[in-house]
């Protein structure tokens, strides 16, 4: 067992623990924080089913963003949709045998990687070129884009330029899952790709990537507009809110 394999095995256990524990902690926090008042952004659905519909289109089509700005919507939606395909494509490294639908989308996933990098590049261009967006950008906002683009480019590099031994890569990850470690190929592009992915996993629960779970808990989007039919009682307990009850 090479040192590299040991380091990366430990790194991925660590990264997986951080992202899972971090997200569970954060999501619990969101779920248990009280909602003192009813604050849906109107016009809002008047039924629970309506809220499901609103959330579904918000999350799959980025409805509000579409209303807001077509360029951000285009780049943002292309990036996220492509990322989803790319992630699904990568399931083949974690399942044996590979699920048939995962096998089916393999060619799509390969194109999606280009779309993903293009979407990210578009977003970054706006961040650099539009004075308003440049003003609100912190170094972390640029670095996050750099990280994602680097992940995309190293991934594409392995597919189209410097092919790596994907059978061995798959054996490595299955080995991690079944606690039967297998050697990781010492391929520089692969090592870089995996290092960046581990970094992303570790950063996730401490960064703005929390928008992913956050959007599901957003009171302005997920509350029903029925204040006159159903008295809204604050969940959770705080001194000032208890008085209200």
């Amino acid at each position, binding site marked *: 067992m090479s040192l590299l394999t040991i380091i990366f095995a430990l790194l991925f256990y660590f990264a997986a623990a951080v992202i899972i524990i971090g997200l569970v902690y954060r999501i619990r926090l*969101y779920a248990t924080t*009280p909602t003192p008042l*009813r604050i849906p952004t109107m016009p809002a659905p008047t039924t629970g089913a309506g809220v499901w519909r609103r959330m579904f289109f918000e999350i799959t089509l980025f409805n509000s963003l579409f*209303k807001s700005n077509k360029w951000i919507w285009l780049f943002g939606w292309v990036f996220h949709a492509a990322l989803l395909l790319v992630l699904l494509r990568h399931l083949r490294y974690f399942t044996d045998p590979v699920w048939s639908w995962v096998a089916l989308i393999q060619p799509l996933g390969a194109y999606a990687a280009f779309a993903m990098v293009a979407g990210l590049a578009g977003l970054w261009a706006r961040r650099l070129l539009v004075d308003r967006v440049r003003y609100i950008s912190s170094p*972390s906002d640029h670095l996050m884009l750099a990280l994602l683009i680097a992940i995309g480019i190293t991934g594409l590099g392995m597919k189209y330029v410097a092919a790596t031994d994907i059978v061995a890569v798959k054996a490595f990850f299955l080995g991690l899952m079944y606690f039967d470690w297998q050697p990781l190929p010492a391929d520089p592009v692969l090592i870089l790709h995996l290092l960046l992915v581990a970094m992303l996993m570790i950063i996730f629960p401490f960064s703005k990537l929390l928008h992913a779970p956050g959007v599901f808990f957003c009171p302005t989007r997920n509350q029903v507009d029925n204040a006159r039919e159903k008295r809204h009682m604050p969940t959770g307990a705080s001194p000032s809110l208890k008085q209200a009850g």
Partner: protein
Amino acid sequence: MADFETPAFKPYPEIPPIEIGVMAHSKPYVAKPDIQEKVGFPGELIDNWKQVAIDKMGELVDNSRALRVFLDSCVKCGACTDKCHYYLGTSDPNNMPVARQDLFRSVYRRYYTVAGKYFPSLVGARDLGQEVLDEWYSYFHQCSQCRRCSVYCPYGIDTAEISMAAREILDCVGVGQKYCNEIIGKAQTIGNNLGLPEPALANTLEGLEEDIEEETGVTVRLPLDQKGADILLITPSADFFAEPHVDGLIGYAKVFHQAGLSWTISSYASEAANFGMFIGSYENMQVLARRIREAALELGVKRIVFGECGHAWRVAYNFLDTLAGPFDFLDPAYPMPQHICEVTYDLLQRNALKMDRSANDDMVLTLHDSCNIARASRMGNFEGGQFVIPREVIKASCNHFVDMPADTIREATFCCGGGGGLLTDDLVELRVKGSLPRMEALQQVVNDHEVTHMAAICAICKSQFSKILPYYGFEMDQVVSIHQLVSNAIQLGGEH
């Protein structure tokens, strides 16, 4: 006139390039100690304010899912950057919703997140200092809590929530805003924002009865503290004396009269607006809300109806039951509360009112959707009723109505520029500049359709436009109340 230039109209609305710090000087008067203490806050900046502010921030985030999620979720995509009327009117980048939020978020990150504690400069986290406090005071009083940004944010982040939290923290360390806190004090002791005591109110209402009789020959009552009335009308106190508000109040009275409804105003709860919301103070909001419940119980009414007021209707529609309920002693056959436009609309639907539309033929009308009616509440029993019902009431009262451009009305409506506790003379520059997008939209329908008047549905909008219209070359009386139009058109007398 103050020392600033009214922005010029552009050939078509465009997004201005940023001009850093151009509105940093804009600050409302700070509340004096007696005003502060009356509403439960320290009189002046306390010694250990930094720690108190940081602790208060933690407490607020622990108690508000909205705040917690909003502070984490923003990805700085820029979708909101051109949506705020104060940014469009001033070009100050701190008036972009995301930048305004970041004044707060940067401090939150520093003290409450791992990234901000260990890598502050990387994630734009800042220590809380006097400079930050000053920035907060300036720019959180340049947000009218109109929620336009929340419509366009892909994560539904509502800057209003963050502005309210920031103002609450400012109050808790002793730096309150004079205008809001003085008014809250008055409303809590006297019953309305103007500090109008019962005898003055009675006198005013009597005067209005005489005016109506003189003009129409019909006796229309405006009852005060009448026990056993069916309806308690809660209306913004500006309706009792300001123009064009009072013409709206006369309209409500005529509608009640003509429909044969028994109603009353309460001198104890003679205010619809709840300024407690503007400063994010749950406790103050609750004190004001409870007066309405107490008045309703005391007078033994069956229904509560609210007059034309935007933020008030938000508090009434969405918060009142939570803050001061339950209202199970009222007649369950009617929504609690009801909006006066809903009452009039229902009567119109049932042909219970006779309207002479030609009474308003001297006007071509448009409607300014008030921000908190459009994006923070509803009318009627269907989604979007808050857009339909006021328009239907107007169209039943006049022959000439046109809408302003689609991206400036309904859920996309612009704030009048004076909402959220900013309707004070010490902020007149901000108010003039912030009304630019609405004024541009108005100018467009004036040019294209010869619109002469703009109807509004909120006391703040009406006062704001009366003041602002002349800066843009309009007349102050070009803003009218919806129920002023009803008042002109309604035919009194005959069968009830």
